[in-house]
Every structure is written in structure tokens, then in C-alpha cells.
């Protein structure tokens, strides 16, 4: 990239290991001010503010290249970074989708778009939501139908998105819309950036299976989006969705490993407390979960050692993803079973074990084999891309 897109990191040089530890430790010590509040709005406001301070200290986006506005840390430095953040109980960026749209803007955006969007994205001044799925386009995302028609300097957008996570809290949406002929598949899709305050845009929260409201339906009634907010060329949006930036894969492992080890401790504590380990069949089920956790950690170790050796993490990534999504369900099914009588309590009941995590986890983990690629689609992907079995288009037709 020839042009500097963000102001604050213009003169950044790669940090040495010592500089990183010194600078980040000092920042974390000086910003250890998590509020005691339980109010979600206040908590979110603090996370946004904290993320802004992190950026202003020149410590945001550890895995992004320096020229894109990140720190350009090596994989081993990213592990150090993740570990320091975890130990300090630092908040994560309040909008996970920022790490999806950010790289797309860096890679496919115009200089004006990069200048306009990247800084507020990294500072969490602006939060993003993703408008991809539609009622009739889930696993078959390229069949999406939300229509965008060019009218001078704007696109007029009509249609509906669904399962839009955090739509209620977001300032902007990145959306895939149909600009080609109906039925044009991947070749007729355009990538748009649009404010959630656009006239004609209506957000209707959906209550999820656990009773909360994390996602929403979003309706478009003649919403005008400036052509200047198109990312990439018209009908070239599918390619834009494939963007990744930097190498962030190692750090997720560190966080997950700690989480899995804690899960084992919680499960064993629960089993002991309820006397479930006196039942040989439940012992066996608990032991199976322990084996699963070893698999997850061993898979993660293997991916990480490849990344550290400068290689791609390899196809074990897709195997692990499927294993992990099904593991979450097995874990919570068992957690509820071990809870015994208490499993009839909703997660909100003060007498539910572990502050209701098993009841809530049981309900919410049904989504782990649905969201971001169903288990069936993941198996298709493994079969086709890893094992080289014949592709979907050679499959028998669906009988239309």
C-alpha cells in the first residue's frame, strides 16, 4: 500500500520483544479500570473507551501489518501479546465483526474509504455488524436476494437480512447485495458499507433460544447507499468476502487452551459436588469429555507449531473446527446431566449451578453446529476441499 491510511501509526517501526512487553505492560497497569457495573450499556461504553485508549497508545491490531495500521507482530510476539492481555483480564474489541470487515477495507478500499473507516473501526468509535444471511439464503449464501439498484450516485436497496449479530449496537453494516440478474450467484453480488441510521432501514431484534437478544432481522425499504460506499467493484463482492489480513491464528489457541483447561476443572467440580462420579456410566461420560479436551488442545498445539514454523496451520484447522463445534454440545449436555435435579432450573434461577452456565450453555450451544457454517456444510467443505471428493455441482439436483 503506497499511501498511509491512518494518522496515528504513520511512523511505526516493528517493536522488539522487550519494547512490546514494556509498552503493553505499562499500558495495562495504567488502564486497569474495569467498572463494577452489571449494566450492559455501561459495560459496552467502557469497552469502547478502553479500546480507544489502546489505539491511542499505539497498541491496537497486533496481527495487522504495520502499513495497514496494525502492529505487525510476529506470531511469537502475538502470543506474548495475547498472554499479557489475558492475564490482565483486558476486554476484547467490542465488535468481533470489525476483524472481518477491517481487512476487506484495507485490501479492497479506496484511499478515501481507508482514511474514513479504519481509525474509527480500530478505536471502536464505530461498531460493525454483518449483513450476509437472509431468510432464503443461509447455507446457500450465494443465492442471496436483497436487491441493490444503481440510481445515479446511490444504490437503492430493498430486501431483508437475518441473524445479524449485534445489529442493535452497531453503527455500520457491511452487507452483500444482489446487483446482478436474479440467479446470478456469486457473480452478481456487491459489497456495500452502510450506516445503521439510514432512512428506510429497520432493525427488529430477535430473541435467541437462550432468551437474550444478540441478533436481529434487518429490513431495507428503499435504503439509499452512496456508490462511494461500495467496497470493490460492482458484482465483485464475493471476492471481497474472502479477504484476510495478517496471521492471527496462533493467538486464538492460547486463549482456547486456558478456557478448555478451566472447563475441565469446572466440570470435575460439578461432578464431585453432585456425587455424579459415583455412577460408573457418568464417570465414563466425564472421562470422554476429558479425552475431547485433550484432542482440542493437541489439535491447537499442532496448528500453532506449524504457524510458528512459518507454515500454514493446514487442513487440521477444518477438522478441529467441526470437532470443537460438536464438543461444545457434548460438554453442555453432560453438564446438565451432571447437575441432576438442578438441570430443571433456567439459567436465571439463583439456585442453578455455576450461575446457570450449564442451562444457558445447553440452549446456546445448539447454535455451534449452525452459526458460521452448519456442521453439514463443514463436512461438505472437508470432503471437497481437503479430501478432494467430487464437488457439490456434480451432486444430484435438488429436484426443482
Amino acid at each position, binding site marked *: 500500500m503506497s499511501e498511509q491510511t491512518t494518522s496515528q501509526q504513520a511512523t511505526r517501526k516493528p517493536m522488539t520483544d522487550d519494547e512490546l512487553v514494556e509498552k503493553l505492560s505499562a499500558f495495562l497497569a495504567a488502564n486497569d479500570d474495569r467498572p463494577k457495573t452489571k449494566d450492559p450499556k455501561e459495560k459496552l461504553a467502557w469497552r469502547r473507551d478502553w479500546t480507544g485508549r489502546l489505539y491511542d497508545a499505539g497498541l491496537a491490531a497486533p496481527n495487522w501489518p504495520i502499513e495497514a495500521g496494525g502492529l505487525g507482530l510476529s506470531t511469537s510476539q502475538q502470543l506474548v501479546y495475547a498472554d499479557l492481555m489475558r492475564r490482565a483480564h483486558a476486554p476484547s474489541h467490542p465488535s468481533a465483526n470489525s476483524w472481518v470487515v477491517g481487512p476487506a477495507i484495507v485490501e479492497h478500499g479506496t484511499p478515501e474509504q481507508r482514511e474514513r473507516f479504519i481509525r474509527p473501526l480500530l478505536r471502536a468509535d464505530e461498531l460493525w455488524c454483518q449483513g450476509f444471511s437472509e431468510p432464503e439464503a443461509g447455507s446457500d449464501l450465494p443465492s442471496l436476494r436483497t436487491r441493490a439498484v444503481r440510481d445515479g450516485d446511490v444504490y437503492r436497496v430493498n430486501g431483508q437480512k437475518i441473524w445479524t449479530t449485534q445489529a442493535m449496537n452497531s453503527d455500520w453494516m457491511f452487507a452483500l447485495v444482489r446487483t446482478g440478474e436474479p440467479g446470478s450467484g456469486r457473480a452478481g453480488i456487491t459489497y456495500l458499507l452502510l450506516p445503521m441510521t439510514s432512512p428506510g432501514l429497520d432493525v427488529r431484534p430477535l430473541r435467541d433460544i437462550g432468551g437474550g437478544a444478540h441478533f436481529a432481522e434487518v429490513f431495507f425499504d428503499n435504503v439509499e447507499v452512496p456508490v462511494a460506499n461500495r467496497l470493490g467493484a460492482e458484482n465483485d463482492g464475493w471476492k471481497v468476502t474472502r479477504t484476510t489480513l495478517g496471521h492471527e491464528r496462533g493467538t486464538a489457541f492460547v486463549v482456547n487452551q486456558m478456557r478448555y483447561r478451566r472447563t475441565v476443572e469446572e466440570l470435575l467440580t460439578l461432578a464431585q459436588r453432585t456425587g455424579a462420579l459415583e455412577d460408573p456410566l457418568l464417570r465414563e461420560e466425564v472421562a470422554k469429555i476429558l*479425552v475431547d479436551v485433550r*484432542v482440542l488442545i*493437541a489439535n491447537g498445539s499442532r496448528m500453532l507449531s506449524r504457524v510458528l514454523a512459518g507454515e500454514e496451520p493446514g487442513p*487440521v484447522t477444518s477438522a478441529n473446527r467441526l470437532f470443537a463445534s460438536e464438543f461444545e454440545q457434548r460438554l453442555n449436555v453432560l453438564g446438565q446431566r451432571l447437575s441432576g435435579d438442578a438441570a430443571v432450573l433456567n439459567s436465571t434461577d439463583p439456585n442453578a449451578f455455576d450461575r446457570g452456565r450449564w442451562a444457558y450453555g445447553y440452549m446456546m450451544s445448539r447454535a455451534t453446529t449452525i452459526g458460521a457454517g452448519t456442521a*453439514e456444510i463443514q463436512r*461438505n467443505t*472437508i470432503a471437497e476441499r481437503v479430501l478432494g471428493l467430487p464437488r457439490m455441482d*456434480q*451432486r*444430484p439436483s435438488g429436484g426443482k
Partner: protein
Amino acid sequence: MVGMTATAGDVRSELRSVLDSMLSAHASSERVREVAASPAWGDEQLWNRLTEVGVHALSVPEALGGAGESIELSAVVLEAAGAHLPVAPLLSSQVAARLLANIGEPASALLPGLLDGSSRLTSVIAHPGEPSGARWPITATGSSGEVRLSGQYPIVLDGADAAAVLVQAQAPDGVVVAVVKPTDTGVELGRCDSLDLTRRIARLSLADAPASVLASGEAAERALERTQVEQAYLLAAEQLGAAQRCLDMSTSYAKTRVQFGKPIGVFQAISHSCANMYVEVEATRSLVEATGGALASDDWDEARQYAAALESFASETLLDCAQRMVQIHGGIAITWEFDAHLYLRRAKSTEVLFGRPSAHRAELLDLALAATEAKA
């Protein structure tokens, strides 16, 4: 702790490729079937080739005359054996070599024959889920140096044709490891009909048989505890090789077998079955690497827990993969001529060898609970 140095990885991949070409050439399906159907203890020509490559004492310390390599290289040998199913006592002799290595100096007299391939050793040691202490089925009388063994053990890998059997025995004052030869008085090692046609097994009966002691007391306990974990790891590596082969055969068949005018791999009933095998095989491979890494770096607590997880998982992976392979191949797979049944036989017999999956899981749970208590 993550992974090993590039050099160690290079040595492993070099050994893997040497063994793979050797076994592809000299352990073809025809050859394996020919040796399996013969009364021979195994494929002597192949054994000699393996001896030339130096596989027998790979992980035995140099001080004892071995190559002093990591046990991860022994795992590579067994992974290749699992893929090709040669009729050769590789698992039994690698485990025996580990037991000798763990005993150390007192076992050095047995090393030369092991190294040059002339003396094939096997062992009988306890595994998870078996009675221990006074209830262990083989007892020793007498004291240090020479003892007399009595008792029976139903399964000895390659026992009928071994030069010697290393036997765990319970003496009045503790456990010992002693050596018996099939030709000794009071030793009976009769070959059994093996479900696994490519592995020889024997039944051991000992009636006041004279035996020399290699280790006793704490030294024996330590060596046995360690070997028990290592034999689970080595068997799992063999199972990994076999499971990978089942997956490879299945995907290859799913690409070429045409029904309803299409390769059967387009049907999700088939392709998802292959994907399930892949997830299991990759998980097993990760566990093999993690266990090998923990053993190589002497992280003993981790090694024990990983090995228990691994052996339960690898057994079930191979069984599932072999059964899926049979189903995916359809009619051809239930014929004698097709190799599927060789893997199915290996799968079902190794599922219980060195302990049932549930016994390994029980072991893992006990270790995890002990670790949590130690922490609290």
C-alpha cells in the same frame, strides 16, 4: 513444549518415507497374505531389510548400544506398519526394546541380539483395567537373580516364536521383571488362532519355570509404569497408520466408484462419512504428536494423561474407520479377496489390546482428579 526442532521433524519424515517405500515394495497385499497364510513367524526377508535400516533399537539409549533416538521415531515405524500390515513382530519388539531401555544397564545383555535382528523379544506387562498386585496372574518365587514363575497369560504378541519373553511377575516382596525362553522347562507358549491374520499371538503358561530377574522393587515398578504408557503410545501410532489407510482407501473408492451415473462421493451419506473419518484421524494424529512430545521432553504427568486419552481415542478411531471403510466399499468389502477385512481384524483386536478404551478413560479420569486435588 510445542512440537520438536526442525531437525527432529526432518529425521522423522525421512524415516517415514524410507519405510513407506520399503513396505510398499515388500509388503504388498499379495506378500502379506502369503506370509500370513504360512506357518512362518513373519516375513524374514522384510525383517532383514528392517534390520538394515536399524529400526529395532532406534529409541534405546546409546549407552546400552541403541541409536539413542526419540521414542517418536519408534512411533513412525509403527505408523508405517499399521498402514501396510506386514506380518512382522514390530509392535512386540519395539515395546520390548522400550522395556529394556527403561530397565537400563541390567538389561544390556539382551541388546546385541535385538540390535542385529537375530533375537526377537516380546513382553507381558500389565495394562489399565487389569488386576494388579497380588491379583496379577503371574507370580514369582525365590529371590534376587533367579526366580521361578507360575501362572498364565492369555495373549502374548509373537510369543510362540520369540527368542525370549520379558515377563512382569508378582513376587512376595514386590514386582519383578524376569526373562523366560520358550524352550525353558515349565514354559509353554502355544500359538493361538488370531482374529488379526497379520499378527501372531500365543498363550503363555508358566509352571515353576526358571527365570532370571532383570529388575525388581522400585526399579521394576518405574520401568513397568513407564513401559505401560509407552506401549499404549506405540500401539496408538500403529492404529493411526491403519486408520489413515482406511480413510485413504475410502476416499479413493468414493471418487471412482460410479452408481446412479455419478461417483458415489457426491452423495453426502458417503462424503460425510469420509469427513467424519478425517476428523477422527487428524485428532488421533494430534494426540500422537502431543503424547510423543510429552514423552520426549520427559513431561511425565502430561505424558500419562495424553497416552490414556490417545489410546482410548485411537482404538475407537480405527474401529470406526475400518467399519466405515467396509460400508463405503459395499459388496466387495465383504469378500475374502479384498483387504478391508485385514484392517477390520486389526481394528477389532487392537481395540482391546493393552486395555479397553473405557479402561484408559478411567485411568485418565483418575489422573485428572488426582491432579485437581493436588492443586486444591
